[in-house]
């Protein structure tokens, strides 16, 4: 089996999807999760710019300028979709109507806090909908590379500005699945072929390791797709 880090992460995150729930996928890596919805699971994906039940990009020439995702790319809509204004969109997000959001991360710390919107000294982008998503979604799954340029992204304490005070639910990386708990960061799973020692070495924060750490399961690749 050959797959890159992003695909691995997306296929592991896909197993967190609960049937008949509303899910928001952040821009970038999290978007990939939509490709690996497990068989038998039906979720509605929300895009914070105002649609629930969107579909992938339509064939060339069938794009509608009034129908895009939160990254501004053309999308389609599934039968039964709902379009709505921005206040309603964030009523859904802040009001706890999302079972899960999947977001990228710059850092996660030992307390389970996430930083993903700003690096002081670098060009400022803005938080967009990230702060609302982290506060409002019932479960916040962070999908990110375990390290950036050799530097651990899982750290004892955030050195970047936090996105929210709230403790996130799960971190899925190319090396491990880690769950922030009351006692600290719990190492739940390791990526195929990766040892616990390798994970510990690549992690800046202390982790709880209880017994044998199983290999992470991943969602099957969709039919017709390579891999």
């Amino acid at each position, binding site marked *: 089996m050959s797959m890159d880090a992003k695909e691995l992460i997306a296929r592991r995150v896909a197993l967190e999807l609960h049937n008949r729930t509303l899910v928001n996928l952040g821009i970038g890596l999290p978007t990939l999760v939509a490709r690996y919805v497990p068989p038998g699971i039906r979720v509605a994906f929300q895009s914070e710019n105002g649609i629930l039940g969107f579909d992938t990009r339509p064939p060339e020439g069938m794009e509608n300028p009034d129908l*895009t995702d939160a990254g501004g790319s053309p999308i389609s809509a599934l039968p039964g979709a709902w379009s709505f*204004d921005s206040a309603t969109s964030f009523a859904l997000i802040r009001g706890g109507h999302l079972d899960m959001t999947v977001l990228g991360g710059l850092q996660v710390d030992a307390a389970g806090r996430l930083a993903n919107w700003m690096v002081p000294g670098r060009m400022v982008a803005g938080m967009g909908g990230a702060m609302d998503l982290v506060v409002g979604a019932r479960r916040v799954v962070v999908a990110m590379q375990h390290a950036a340029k050799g530097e651990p992204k899982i750290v004892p304490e955030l050195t970047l500005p936090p996105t929210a005070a709230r403790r996130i639910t799960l971190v899925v990386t190319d090396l491990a699945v880690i769950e922030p708990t009351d006692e600290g960061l719990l190492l739940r799973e390791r990526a195929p072929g990766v040892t616990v020692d390798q994970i510990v070495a690549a992690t800046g924060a202390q982790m709880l390791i209880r017994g044998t750490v199983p290999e992470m399961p991943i969602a099957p690749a969709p039919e017709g797709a390579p891999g």
Partner: protein
Amino acid sequence: MRIAINAEEAAKLVPDGASVMVAGFLGVGTPERLVEALVARGARGLTVIGNDTARPGLGIGKLIDAGCVARVVASHIGTNPVTQRKMLAGEIQVDLVPQGTLAERIRAGGAGLGGVLTPTGVGTAAADGKRVIELDGREFLLEPPLRADVALLHAHEADHFFNLAYRLTATNFNPVMALAADCVIAEADEVVPIGVIPPDAVRTSGILVDYLVARGR
């Protein structure tokens, strides 16, 4: 039946230095002809309130390019390097607001509410200078309502009474901004007779729309 104005006349209704809500999300649902007319008029010193500044050459990005803007209130400027560069150069002041808070502050401005009590931003840089209210042991930021001198809207359809209907993700900030400005100017992809948009499909009543921009000829 009411009379539409052209985009040039509409641009004159937005004085230099005005605060202007511009609907849209990365340019989708933004009234491009109104934006272009503001650029053509050489508007200066505007405070623009919108979700983002799109990209150079698109939507609010055109106002940024042309130097019309002194201040931006938005949730995200990461898609527009010109906005970022002008911010660093001190040419544009940028106030970043979480997207849901921005939508809700505009809604509060239009709905006569004193502010918004949101859990979003507590414990982050978004809380700087904000009043924190504790309720039942939980903390909320007290965010002030937002209003503007002018709102520029984009609709899919307008009827002859200026009722508006939006389409799909081009809806975004349009309905809330329609209530939150002293002067509301809309442009529409199509103009239809009264009655073509049924009561349940109207999203903004014509009574709230001061001016409609005539279709291009």
